[in-house]
């Protein structure tokens, strides 16, 4: 749920990065944190296991600038991707304004990608959202791997509407900010259109 604070002159929106385990959600957030100037970002919070698997969520607040005198702040969250953390994923989606689905381009992870999109749809529905209408972007990550499925095949299998699709190698930052800019724009356009 977008939060507009007239006293503080702020617009606050929530974006959630979703996807199967080890697809690169946390890597995306970490890259954004590392490359964003200090004054435009807050502390990166990562609630993870000892083996650096996301346990509950990652959280990064960023400020993108002002629109009409209002600071635009985006809270970026990732969900834990492992299948058995579904209860936690559902909680993190509360109040979401936009979703980025990070898909793992490896052929052996295609079933996991498809299952995760379906899981996203169901969890959004539990919160009263419809994947077909929520601001949404698809990122095809790990494009550098030799076992990567073609972008066309992945798009055909995973795209749910006419959402923008971005190829990425999150470990190198490729596609990370393009994806973020796209979802930010979609969220703001959606707010304008309400």
């Amino acid at each position, binding site marked *: *749920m977008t939060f507009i604070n*007239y006293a503080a002159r702020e617009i606050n929106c929530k974006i959630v990065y979703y996807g199967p385990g080890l697809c690169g959600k946390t890597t995306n957030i970490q890259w954004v944190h590392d490359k964003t100037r200090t004054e435009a970002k807050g*502390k990166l919070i990562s609630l993870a296991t000892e083996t650096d698997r996301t346990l509950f*969520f990652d959280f990064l*607040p960023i400020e993108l*600038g002002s629109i009409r005198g209002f600071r635009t702040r985006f809270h970026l969250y990732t969900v834990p991707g492992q299948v058995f953390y579904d209860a936690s994923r559902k909680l993190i989606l509360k*109040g979401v304004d936009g979703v980025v689905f990070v898909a793992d381009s490896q052929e052996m992870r295609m079933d996991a990608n498809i299952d995760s999109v379906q899981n996203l749809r169901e969890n959004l529905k539990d919160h009263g959202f419809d994947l077909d209408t929520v601001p949404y972007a698809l990122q095809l990550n790990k494009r550098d791997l030799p076992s990567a499925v073609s972008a066309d095949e992945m798009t055909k299998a995973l795209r749910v509407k006419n959402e923008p699709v971005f190829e990425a190698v999150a470990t190198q930052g490729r596609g990370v900010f393009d994806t973020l800019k796209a979802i930010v724009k979609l969220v703001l356009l959606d*707010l304008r259109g*309400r």
Partner: protein
Amino acid sequence: MAGSSLVVLEEDHTRFIALLDRLREESNAKFAFLLDRAGQQIAAAGALEASDPTALASLTAGNVAATEGLAQIIGENKFSTLYHEGENDSLHISLVSNKVILLVIFDEHSSLGLVRLRVKQITQDLGRVLDELMTRSDSQVSGSAVSSNLFEEISDEDIDALFG
């Protein structure tokens, strides 16, 4: 609610601050914080010292959400309050009108009993302000008009300019 916005006007903020200040003084607490259940900060009173309020809000919301999940698993509707005791500072977390989270940080100058008492007393007043705010935010006439006027002014160039 899907597709909705929570709009806090200056007068709402002022009323929240006044109530949080009163709570903080009457309970001898260090800090009182109102946030929504998605982790967005609504209002705060007191000094947070070295802590990061944005991270505090996000983690508190996550804490509440996770604890509600736990409650439901064991057959409870919810846990009405959460209390975390530290060596120096402690946290008292409660829900107001089941819609927003009230966090109070206190030290040895207060007590759990006093904080609980004052939180209970202030919750109704906070709830009243919140109900007015929610009614306005949901309203077709005034609430959405406030925020839609802001967003209608936003142009494509404004959005593109965010990214330099």
